[in-house]
């Protein structure tokens, strides 16, 4: 097992290097200089100031040197300083906002699994039943629905018409004066809509995937064996079949990470949640390159980590993977 993990870790190194190169190239191939925002837009900026600024961000050196010094810095987790007036280190800006984004994504992933797996299993077991047909339609609509639009509709319904749920931020204005029990409830209420919506995108895909897995497994010989030896249908389905159908779902866990993280930009800006997605959006609007580059990098690394965790858990669950 250890050997497998080490092997996986080593195979990540070239990918990681590739990620840094893509990040760097994306930021440097684009027209315009990152300091344009501060110089061209600022009539008082002199040529001298521009040069000093370029020197400050190493922009006066050849590209490969800029790349090497950038990679050297990120190796020690130094992502540079933000262009925004506060000039704070990018790494700290991101780390402050990472927990809420990870919390929302973890919760929505739990929600996806808790809802999609039973739906997929039931529609496979009762193939062509009314339930299967209804979930089939749901899946088609789920794939096509723009989730930010669904967010607007739910905000109108639950936030404005019914007034049940708050539609912005992660806590109420009077948060500091609430009794301890209410504080938790307040945060939960704020998270219901964002978590549900960010889960929505993954529901359709996973339930369909689970359905086809289950259909595949039910056809296998060992299921026939289980039936032949007189096990109850319940035991056959929920013990023998389900376990095997669940295995490949672990991989989906890893594959869904980039979609969830990417989606956080939309949800965090709709619901005004102070997470990494919102920071990314604000930095894109302000052309704060060091932050944009840092988050792009972290987004890719989180994906890589998600894949690693999925692969390792798969190997833990399925001994065949470890050997080959």
């Amino acid at each position, binding site marked *: 097992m250890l050997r497998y993990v080490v092997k996986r870790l080593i195979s990540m190194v070239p*990918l990681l290097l590739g990620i840094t190169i*893509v990040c760097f190239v994306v930021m440097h191939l684009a027209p*315009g200089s990152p300091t344009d925002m501060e110089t061209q837009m600022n009539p008082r900026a002199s040529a001298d100031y521009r040069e000093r600024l370029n020197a400050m961000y190493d922009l006066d050196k050849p590209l490969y040197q800029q790349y090497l010094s950038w990679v050297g810095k990120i190796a020690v987790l130094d992502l540079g300083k933000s262009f925004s007036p506060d000039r704070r280190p990018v790494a700290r800006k991101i780390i402050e906002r990472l927990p809420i984004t990870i919390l929302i994504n973890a919760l929505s992933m739990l929600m996806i699994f808790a809802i999609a797996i039973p739906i997929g299993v039931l529609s496979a077991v009762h193939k062509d039943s009314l339930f299967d047909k209804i979930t089939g339609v749901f899946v*088609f*609509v789920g794939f096509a629905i723009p989730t930010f639009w669904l967010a*607007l509709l739910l905000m109108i319904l639950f936030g404005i018409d019914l007034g049940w749920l708050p539609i912005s931020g992660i806590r109420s204005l009077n948060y500091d004066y609430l009794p301890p029990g209410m504080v938790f409830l307040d945060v939960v209420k704020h998270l219901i809509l964002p978590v549900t919506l960010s889960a929505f995108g993954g529901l359709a895909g996973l339930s369909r995937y689970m359905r086809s897995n289950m259909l595949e497994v039910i056809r296998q010989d060992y299921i026939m064996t289980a039936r032949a030896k007189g096990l109850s249908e319940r035991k056959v389905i929920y013990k023998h079949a389900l376990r095997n159908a669940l295995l490949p779902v672990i991989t989906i866990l890893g594959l869904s990470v*980039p979609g969830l993280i990417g989606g956080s930009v*939309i949800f965090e800006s709709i619901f005004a949640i102070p997470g990494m997605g919102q920071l990314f959006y604000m930095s894109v609007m302000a052309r704060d390159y060091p932050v944009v580059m840092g988050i*792009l990098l972290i987004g890719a690394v989180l*994906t890589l980590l998600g894949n690693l965790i999925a692969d390792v858990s798969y190997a833990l669950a399925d001994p065949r993977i470890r050997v080959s």
Partner: protein
Amino acid sequence: MGTDFWKRFKKNKIALAGSCVVILLFVVSIFAPVIAPYDPDEINLKLVLAPPSASHLCGTDQLGRDVFSRMVWGSRISLKVGFVATGIAILIGAILGAVAGYYGRWTDAVIMRFVDIMLCFPTFFLILAVIALLEPSIWNIMIIIGLTGWMGITRLVRADFTSLKERDFVLAAKAIGASDLRIIFIHILPNAMASVLVAATLGVAGAILTESALSFLGIGVQPPTPSWGNILTAGKDNIDIAWWLSLYPGLAILVTVLGYNLLGEGIRDSLDPRLK
């Protein structure tokens, strides 16, 4: 593909439903000037945020413009973005996939590692990062969506090429001295087009969704040009008073994307009924 395909396609309800929606969209965008009852940019400050009525089917926006007319014109944007972005993605994906699959060895290894690397980036992050550097215009949006959406197609085409290049007709073409380019584009690629066609149809749907999300965030198609996404932005700004600004454009996106998805699904089923 051939007569069998059309026979199955015509019997496939999903495919027909999808085709109807897609044809309808084409008709709406081609005849937008005739269908739209008002000029989409005509400002009427006496009728700001008017709810839907007989004269304004989907109400008016914050500048008193007719929302239905803006949606009709917005369908042109969706159509353009969908096709141009997917075209770019297919061009890149097909060429890279063909080269990787045909030549194999290190060419394959390099291209496929590059695909792996690109897939590590949350697509939406990559698009936003590039847009941060460019002017948000419709052309830039189309190009960027295309440039970040070719990885799946590369994998599909590569898989087809790896198996097709061992087939007799390819070996025969090699034996009579056909050039690599000729073999790739004339002999193998047409045989790999089936899976590309399905991926492309689904890709159009994805590109339309992405464009609407970008325009919604204010970094896609810029007002006053109407797009379904930027009408929804106005919906969000007036969320507590004008529900119609939020409801109708999103419905248009949903129906459009659903139409392309159904069409793609239908083509897949008709191409190979065993895959169902």
